[in-house]
């Protein structure tokens, strides 16, 4: 909800941000944190009195290629970080999703946004999520204090891990001003094995066999007929040194021969494919459909889709079947059907795309048990007692 009449505050430094927060707290004002705006559709719609922009908190704080760590301010465009890393042959391990294709937004995704949403992609199954790579942060809490947690080293168990707690908190606990990530070397090359015409269960079986093999698969997806081809396709990606990739692709072809594995994609074509999968590009249209992101045990993916039944308009699987993307009608009824279908399997469903009115009136995130809701409220209050930041972004009234 980009309410045009709402004032935007743009602190130029962490200290200035802290002062603005103190002022907002004193006046009882609520602030909605905004970055580049490319993911503005995530979570419940903003309910604040003013916007707090990270645009003035921009730049790489340090980059140590020899330690494989980078620290950037929240407002730094992700593209800027990725370009700097690419020059030294390194990358963020978790392959963050670009939401612009799904939302039709045009802003620049920022570091702060990917922290707020714990934004990860296909490589999450082998290299971890954003929350795994994030090893340090600084934030302004709702008391106007500057707090740090973690640091710049990978192994660190000094005190409570407020880094992970804030990664994926949708900005509800504080304004993260800078974040530090550990990195990976960019693989020398990649290739993707393709299997055609498998039905969902059989495809997930093939993905599971591959993920349980010693061939270090870094992407495992199954997409439906109509998503680029007239038939369903199953993909497995391997990355690394050329000789190793060649060997592992041929090993996987042999392993999955009973499933009809015959082809492999290379280079550009493989890269484009995984960007489409990671960005859920297949569900971009029709733009009025609701889009769900569901994480569950991989072998339950197809059972879940079967239970959703006709409410699922289109769907595909990433993470070996453990991440189901699906579109449905944008209605409370369809939403209830998705949640009901998931409940026997465990896991969690997030409503990623829907009109504001719908996201304001139903659960966007997986509903919490009573004890977890009590803890969520308590932790929110421990950071932000007056509810300055992103009020009600995750749960109504919290």
């Amino acid at each position, binding site marked *: 909800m980009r309410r045009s009449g709402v004032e935007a505050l743009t602190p130029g430094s962490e200290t200035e941000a802290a002062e603005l927060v103190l002022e907002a707290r004193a006046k009882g004002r609520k602030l909605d944190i905004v970055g580049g705006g490319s993911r503005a559709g995530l979570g419940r719609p903003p309910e604040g009195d003013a916007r707090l922009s990270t645009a003035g908190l921009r730049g790489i704080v340090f980059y140590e290629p020899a*330690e494989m760590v980078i620290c950037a301010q929240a407002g730094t465009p992700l593209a800027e970080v990725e370009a700097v890393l690419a020059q030294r042959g390194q990358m963020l391990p978790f392959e963050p999703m670009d939401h612009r294709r799904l939302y039709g937004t045009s802003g620049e995704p920022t570091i702060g946004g990917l922290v707020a949403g714990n934004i990860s992609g296909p490589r999450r199954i082998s290299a971890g999520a954003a*929350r795994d790579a994030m090893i340090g942060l600084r934030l302004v809490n709702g008391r106007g204090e500057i707090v740090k947690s973690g640091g710049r080293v990978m192994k660190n168990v000094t005190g409570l891990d407020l880094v992970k707690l804030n990664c994926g908190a949708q900005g509800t606990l504080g304004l993260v001003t800078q974040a530090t990530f550990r990195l990976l070397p960019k693989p020398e090359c990649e290739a993707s094995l393709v299997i055609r015409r498998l039905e969902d269960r059989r495809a997930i079986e093939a993905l599971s066999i591959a993920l349980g093999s010693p061939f270090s698969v870094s992407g495992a997806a199954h997409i439906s007929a109509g998503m680029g081809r007239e038939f369903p396709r199953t993909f497995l990606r391997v990355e690394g040194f050329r000789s*190793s990739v060649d060997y592992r692709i041929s090993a996987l072809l042999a392993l999955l021969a009973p499933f009809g594995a015959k082809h492999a994609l290379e280079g550009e074509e493989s890269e484009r494919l995984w960007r489409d999968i990671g960005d859920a590009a297949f569900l971009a249209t029709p733009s009025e459909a609701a889009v769900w992101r569901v994480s569950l045990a991989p072998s339950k993916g197809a059972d879940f889709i079967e239970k959703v039944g006709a409410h699922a308009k289109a769907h595909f699987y990433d993470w070996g079947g453990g991440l189901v993307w699906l579109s449905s009608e944008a209605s409370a009824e369809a939403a209830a059907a998705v949640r009901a279908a998931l409940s026997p399997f465990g896991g969690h469903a997030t409503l990623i795309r829907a009109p504001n009115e719908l996201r304001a009136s139903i659960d966007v995130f997986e509903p919490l048990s009573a004890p977890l809701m009590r*803890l969520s409220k308590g932790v929110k209050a421990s950071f932000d007692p007056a509810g300055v930041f992103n009020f009600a972004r995750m749960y109504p009234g919290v």
Partner: protein
Amino acid sequence: MSQIAFPTPEPGILARRDAILAGLAALLPRGSLITQSEECRAFETDALTAYRRAPLAVALPTSTREVAAVLRYCRDAGVYVVPRGAGTSLSGGAIPQEDAIVIGLSKMSRILEINLPDRYARVEAGVTNLAISEAVMAEGFFYAPDPSSQLACTIGGNIGMNSGGAHCLKYGVTTNNVLGLTMATIDGEIIELGGAHLDSGGLDWLGLMVGSEGQLGIVTEAVVRLLRSAEGARPVLFGFDSAEAAGQCVAAIIGAGLIPVAMEYMDRLAIEICEGFAHAGYPLDVEAMLIIEVEGCEAEMEAQLAKIQAIAKSHGVKIVRESMSAMESALIWKGRKSAFGATGRIADYICMDGTVPTSRLPEALRRTGEIVASYGLRVANVFHAGDGNMHPLVLYNVNDEAEQAKAEAAGNDLLKLCVDLGGCLTGEHGVGIEKRDLMRHQFNAEDLAQQMRVRAVFDPDWRLNPAKVFPLDGRVPA
């Protein structure tokens, strides 16, 4: 003479001992409550043996419900609680106090479910780290974090301390390998977090719980990720004439974008001690040695090793020895993993656990030597070099009070050094009591207060593991 303070036992709790024990006995099966002082003695310390406190009693519940019931009882009775796995903590994380009930998870050691298609295991918190890998080894799978104490330490303790091990350079530490857990709060509520799936649908409670050192609740079950073992693994020994050169070689390997599955460092004294114990064929005429392990298919190992060897050569490596057999590899790792035990045979020691940025390793090693020498003591360095997680073992005689004080002072200086070089106090052993009073060197008042306010949401009266992690003065209530 102990330097680390414990809270003064509350006379009001000690005076009610009989009534408290009677209340607990009603909640637990026969044989699950230890009250005799001789039997409690086995629980009075952990691997930080210089400190000992006898607990009021020890409860050994057999189910999550019993853990929850005991916790609620302790809250209502106003008694402190100290959780315990196998008692292998090097930071004193499981050391009790006179007015506390120890809740030990040793009777909850079952593997509840193994699911290879979905690549997870559901286990009780008292199961040992190694038992998980052993249960799936025949199918070619393993549980990745591998602390040196993995034969004894429990998954519950690993979660408490976010344990690492030698292979976390590639596979991450406990927090990257736990999918779900069941915990009981001090209020006696049972909470399920995560499950057989990835990531969280709300706040990252798993991320908060792992490494929280038993301050937020007691973990009773866990769902952990299982990984398929690589096709092959090959450790290679690299001997250097100086610590500096070995340290620089580590930084250069990481900087070149290579991620060997393990990269371990040993100095001359550590090599001598471990070789004397394990007869692994370590070179004895070098100042420093790296054990670098690569894994994967043959092509993968060859490509990695060629690059690593070239870097080592440019750093003046003196000896390179590749393992030629599975038996040789096992011996190489046996030597490394027995480092703490083997050191314990020749002297008492305290083991530090600070982490430094890998580019600062050479400097950290040099200053470590200088600091320990300035106290007139000896140090053996054996640690996870790839992630900068140092483990200087400061040798001393536990029966010499003055020497113990010196060793602790040297240890404190070493940890401050790690923080000053851009690292942290503890990489994988936890703060416990050992580093509690150094927390203000790494965190300022606002940082610590924020952590304590989060802690207080779970345990407003500070009943859980109260002497640990946060300095005893200036604690923030709910």
